[in-house]
């Protein structure tokens, strides 16, 4: 046997695919996977939310209540009680023990947390001028509870965290990135949910006061500060202008009377002026 040296040019041991092309395929595949997971989770959360008993939710709520540096506010609590009393007795909302808490913050916002905690930021209280406006804000948050929006959000967030953990392992930066990105997008209610809560809140306001006066005042004031519509195309909350328009359309459609608003009573005026 004779040995004939010959150089073989091609290399079968290394694939020809460009690494960046492979990377693009893999990331693309991963994105598709995430989107599918997201849709499935959204769907199942939607199904599950209506079936979770309020009692189970109350236990969950205890975990969330500690996240905010908040104090109970008897004045706000009294307003909420007034709204709750106008609810029909068969309303499932009566199973909650609602607690209104005030957080010192310039943010103009209020939150509905699982378990019946309503958090009102003092920035919002400073903006409110009448009892009716405040009632609408609280009724709006009650609307979120009535539609169980807070659970819907939670269900998806938990599912996503779980999914990312399964994919990337419990403590990987890729997993953390995925959860962070997705939780940010999930941390607010959808515009549809906000509109629905507005509508529900308006009905409660009318049931409580007998007229829809003051319903649009708060958003009208917010609209003046909010300015352009363009950023609101992306935002989770509808633009205040749109909310005003929607509420007015509803008031007109249902034929609710609009009467003079009741100015804010003493006990809450002090909260705003302390700032």
């Amino acid at each position, binding site marked *: 046997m004779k*040995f004939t*040296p*010959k*150089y073989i040019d091609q*290399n079968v*041991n*290394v*694939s020809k*695919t460009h*690494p*960046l092309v*492979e*990377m693009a395929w*893999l*990331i693309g*595949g*991963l994105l598709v*996977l995430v989107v599918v997971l997201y849709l499935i989770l959204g769907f199942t959360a939607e199904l599950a939310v209506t079936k979770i008993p309020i009692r189970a939710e109350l236990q969950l709520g205890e975990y969330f209540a500690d996240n905010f540096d908040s104090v109970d506010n008897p004045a706000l609590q009294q307003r909420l009680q007034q709204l709750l009393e106008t609810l029909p007795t068969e309303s499932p909302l009566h199973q909650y023990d609602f607690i209104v808490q005030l957080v010192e913050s310039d943010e103009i916002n209020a939150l509905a947390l699982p378990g019946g905690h309503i958090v009102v930021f003092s920035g919002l209280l400073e903006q409110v001028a009448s009892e009716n406006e405040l009632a609408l804000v609280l009724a709006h948050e009650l609307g979120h509870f009535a539609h169980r929006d807070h659970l819907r959000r939670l269900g998806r967030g938990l599912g996503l965290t779980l999914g990312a953990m399964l*994919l*990337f*392992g419990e403590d*990987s*930066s*890729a997993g*953390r*990135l995925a959860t*962070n990105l997705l939780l940010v997008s999930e941390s607010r209610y959808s515009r549809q949910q906000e509109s629905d809560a507005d509508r529900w809140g308006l009905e409660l306001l009318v049931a409580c006061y007998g007229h829809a006066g003051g319903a649009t005042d708060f958003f009208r004031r917010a609209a003046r500060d909010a300015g352009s519509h363009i950023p609101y195309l992306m935002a989770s909350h509808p633009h205040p202008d749109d909310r005003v328009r929607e509420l007015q359309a509803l008031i007109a459609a249902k034929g609710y009377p609009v009467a003079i608003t009741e100015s804010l009573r003493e006990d809450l005026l002090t909260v705003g002026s302390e700032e």
Partner: protein
Amino acid sequence: MFDVILQNFDLFLFFCLAVLGYTCGTIAEKRHYKSIIRREKELLKLMVVNAEGHFAEGVVKQSFLVNGSAVISNDYFKRMLAILRNIFGGRVKAYESLIDRSRREAILRMKQEARAKGAHMIVNLRLETSTIGRAANQKNQVGSIEALAYGTAVVMNRK
């Protein structure tokens, strides 16, 4: 922008390392392959077989062990590709070139040693591969692989 970087500093670092890994890794790989191909052509005439050598009496003047080993490091980009590959399955193409380079480099070093010692051929070639370094077989660490080539160099009795 700066805040976002600070908040996700580990991710930012990871991204930087991946970019660094890709650019440096690609440059190093290209240069290495160039050098491998050049030296392989140079040493082509030195025969290497993995068969056992059976020689008639008096043909072999001298025989001795020769070995060569090479350690090639993984980089962050390749690791990321491999992690993503782990999700979907399939060939981990990112690591193929690492193995290929280290084996060929190890064989080349072995051949260089044999030539320096005046051998005419190498028989009984064997190859071993292992992961080494502090990080070997550990999660979240970039490891290296080592290929070891060894064989019996043979010096013939030539007239």
